[in-house]
């Protein structure tokens, strides 16, 4: 028997309180009929005796304490799923907004997912070629990895993400899908992604979940969970390789903060709730490969660092959960280098097991180590040059500085549509390292150097 409860006892921001509810269960969803003819949806977030607190996804505007009829569905929020979701556009709650009608569900899944037992996971090893030198060689993306892009407002993270999606080799065998979740981004940004998917002819492989910046924040908290539920269905039920792009995690975390403070919780650092880490982990940890399934879920979350501050709680906690990060740098960006990947703080934790002779080339790891080490020296030389002037530098430092300039200009910098093969990228790396004499290359063993280092007379004399 379904009860309908008339009226509410309290309304506070996105939250409403009902008294005397029979047998409520945590996270149960509810439908609220307002007497203006609209229907809203809510979810139980607190039960205190018979009093129940609901969060309303669509917001509480226009609701009064006595113009509603509330009924409970008896189950937690779930998402209707079937292979037809590919190519569709949904709002942040998983309702279609492309005017093509509802999805006929083959199954329904709880949007909160379930943690994967590490024993059931398969350790990711297959590398994904993105065609972008800085990523392929120095922060290699692996199938089943979560690799966020740390960016700032105004930098070219959207272009970079779109380029990765376009060129990623997961798209090679056709059995792939892209799940795109927009959280609190501007309409233009969502539109940019839609256009770039259309231009690269993958739109019929994309599932979009859009929660734009003027959509309700409660819906924003649900959006990534809907997207990942869809991704898990495609990957583990249908065996597809799924690339999930989540943008922008900063808006997501801010929505969580707004929601937390309206619940009256004790705030932690910068006003974010103390459980921000666990909450972010419940999203990021849903990447991976499961034993016995052909598919994989690879995540590329994008976040804009407030004030470019990498120690801000959002990038900081994200970095502790994800398997590395790609950090964009404003000074590179302002000198016109695209993609402005700052390689020293960038890292891919799964890279060491996904590169080498079996996957890319045997010299990859040595080359990457040497590039990192030499580029770190470039920073020291730059700092010294800014104090004593470039002319006063030792010949070694001058050589290193020249290497740094060429590295940024030719290795980091590449076109929006330039798709470099891994061979090209590695060879380019060796060409650049050949600007430095062998004695300055201390991370590579002699044999590899003999094979790849092209030391010529010109370099020795300079």
């Amino acid at each position, binding site marked *: 028997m379904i009860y309908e409860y008339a009226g509410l006892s309290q309304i506070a921001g996105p939250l409403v309180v009902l008294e005397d509810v029979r047998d409520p269960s945590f996270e149960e969803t509810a439908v609220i009929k307002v007497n203006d003819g609209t229907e809203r949806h809510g979810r139980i977030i607190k039960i205190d005796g018979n009093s129940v607190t609901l969060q309303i996804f669509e917001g509480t505007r226009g609701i009064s304490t006595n113009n509603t009829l509330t009924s409970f569905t008896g189950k937690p929020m779930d998402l209707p799923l079937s292979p037809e979701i590919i190519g569709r556009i949904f709002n942040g709650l998983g309702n279609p907004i492309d005017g093509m009608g509802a999805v006929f569900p083959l199954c329904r899944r709880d949007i909160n997912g379930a*943690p*994967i*037992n*590490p*024993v059931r*996971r*398969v*350790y*990711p090893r297959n590398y994904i070629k993105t065609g972008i030198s800085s990523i392929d060689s120095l922060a290699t993306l692996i199938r*089943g*990895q979560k690799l966020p892009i740390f960016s700032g407002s105004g930098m070219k993270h959207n272009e970079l993400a779109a380029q990765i999606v376009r060129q990623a080799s997961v798209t090679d065998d056709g059995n792939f899908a892209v799940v795109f979740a927009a959280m609190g981004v501007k309409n233009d940004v969502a539109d940019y992604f839609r256009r770039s998917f259309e231009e690269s002819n993958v739109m019929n492989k994309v599932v979009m979940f859009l929660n734009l910046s003027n959509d309700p924040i409660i819906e924003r908290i649900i959006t990534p969970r809907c997207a990942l539920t869809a991704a898990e269905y495609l990957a583990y039920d249908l065996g597809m390789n799924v690339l999930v792009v989540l943008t922008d995690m900063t808006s997501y975390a801010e929505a969580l903060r707004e929601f937390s403070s309206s619940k009256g919780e*004790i*705030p*932690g*650092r910068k006003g974010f*709730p*103390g*459980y921000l*880490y*666990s909450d972010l*982990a*419940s999203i*990021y*940890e*849903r990447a*991976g490969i499961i034993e016995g399934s052909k598919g994989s879920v690879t995540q590329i979350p994008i976040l804009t660092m407030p004030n470019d501050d*990498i*120690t*801000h*709680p959002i990038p*900081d*906690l994200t*970095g*502790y959960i994800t398997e*590395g*990060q790609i950090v964009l740098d404003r000074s590179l960006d302002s000198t016109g280098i695209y993609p402005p990947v700052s390689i*020293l*703080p960038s*890292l891919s934790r*799964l890279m*060491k*097991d996904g590169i080498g002779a079996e996957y890319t080339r045997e010299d990859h*790891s040595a080359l990457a*180590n040497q590039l*990192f*080490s030499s580029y*770190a*020296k470039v920073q020291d030389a730059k700092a*010294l040059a800014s*104090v*004593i002037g470039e002319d*006063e*530098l*030792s010949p070694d*430092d001058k050589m290193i500085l020249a290497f740094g300039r060429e590295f940024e200009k030719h290795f980091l910098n590449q076109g929006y549509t330039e798709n470099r093969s891994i061979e090209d990228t590695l060879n380019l790396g060796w060409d650049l390292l050949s600007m430095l004499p062998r*004695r300055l290359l*201390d*991370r590579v*063993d*002699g044999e590899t150097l003999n094979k790849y280092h092209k030391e010529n007379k010109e370099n020795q004399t300079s």
Partner: protein
Amino acid sequence: MDEEKEWETLITASLSDLLKEGDFYAEIPETPVVTHRLMVPPGLSGEVIWSASNGRYKLNDSILKIRDKDGREHPLTLCQRWPIKTPRPASKRLPLSRPLITGQRILDTLYPIAKGGAAAVPGGFGTGKTVTQHQLAKWCDADIIIYVGCGERGNEMTQALAEFSQITDPRTGRPLTDRTVLIANTSNMPVAAREASIYTGITIAEYYRDMGYHTALMADSTSRWAEALREISGRLEEMPAEEGFPAYLPSRLSEFYERAGSFKNLNGSEGSITVIGAVSPQGADFSEPVTQNTKRFTRCFWALDKALAYARHYPAINWTDSYSEYFGDLADWYRKEVGNDFVHCRNEIHTLLVEEKRLMEIVKLIGADVLPDDQKLIIETARVIRVGFLQQNATDPTDTYVPLIKQLKMMRCILRLHNGSAELISNKVPLSKITALGLFDRLTSMKYDVPNDNQEILDTYLTQIDKELAALKKTV
């Protein structure tokens, strides 16, 4: 545990034996390298009045009955229960006198930890906390490793599982999983379980310690555990102290770290628990409460450095911020077991590094060219120490584990070259001529060139250094 699985049990107690608490009464070969000894639970003692015969038993089968002094009978099974937040009793604490040998040069030589000690490994993300912990779990010379993945990545636990079953323990020739207990609470698992996972780990460590084993517990990461405390405390609406952490954070941390130590057990055997806790400070800021409080209760501090990690200098342990208070206690052991000059060499290497840091401040302002040759030599030697000695490649089969004696011989080579060169420089030989010999570069790569089982090569390095330097002296 599977309650249906049968274990091959060998009963060691016989009828009318008087058993005290902690005494062994049966043995089970748990894995080929670990013999599981069943003990009378603490608080119980009495006379054996019945025992089953040797054979295969399930976890909850009674195999022995004892009668205590009040005449009550207690059946003993293959398992015992213990509340995880209460430390298991031991008869007394022993002084710490032996190092936990890890095969990692910077740890064994510069900042060693004693068996039974506690260490903190703080570092921002990407500085290599997990790799350091994995290296320790793989190579340290404890009998039992407890690895607690506390609020960390699922893929990392999978990697640990896969890797540990492939690597063979050099001492037993068996896969590492035979001596390892993994406790997995990944970051998306429930918070309440995360709060408990650390205690579960240390209780298991104590249980094996009571059997007379040396155990080492790696907790990755205690910050996640502290955050779980904070989250639970927040939900209980307790008054927060620093940064929202509950006011009882320091006392909980000290309770945990004090469970480490070297013990004489109730049954007279000796065992130890070494605790190595990773700390993930927010924004890599070591002044936050978890790092600060952990520092108070551990005597070994291995500070991971972002700048070193960015330059891919691994292990990214900063050699000026880190410290170990155990070195003094262990000095005698090193002198006796490794070499008389070990402590001396270690101190000299350390002094050179400190000296280099001071010189680098000057170099940053005016460049290296203006320094006199003797100071340039310090910078050159320190480079060899940093790149050739401190840096260690976890993925290289030779370099991933280095025996202590090779560490000592490497130090001898570096110091011989340094002191020899210093003598030449005081005789007005320019440094450029000495570096042109290529000796510095050869020492930088000796970690790869000299195999672990043929360290005698390093002795020939010494004579070669002497020969080449003497030859140079003659020509000038």
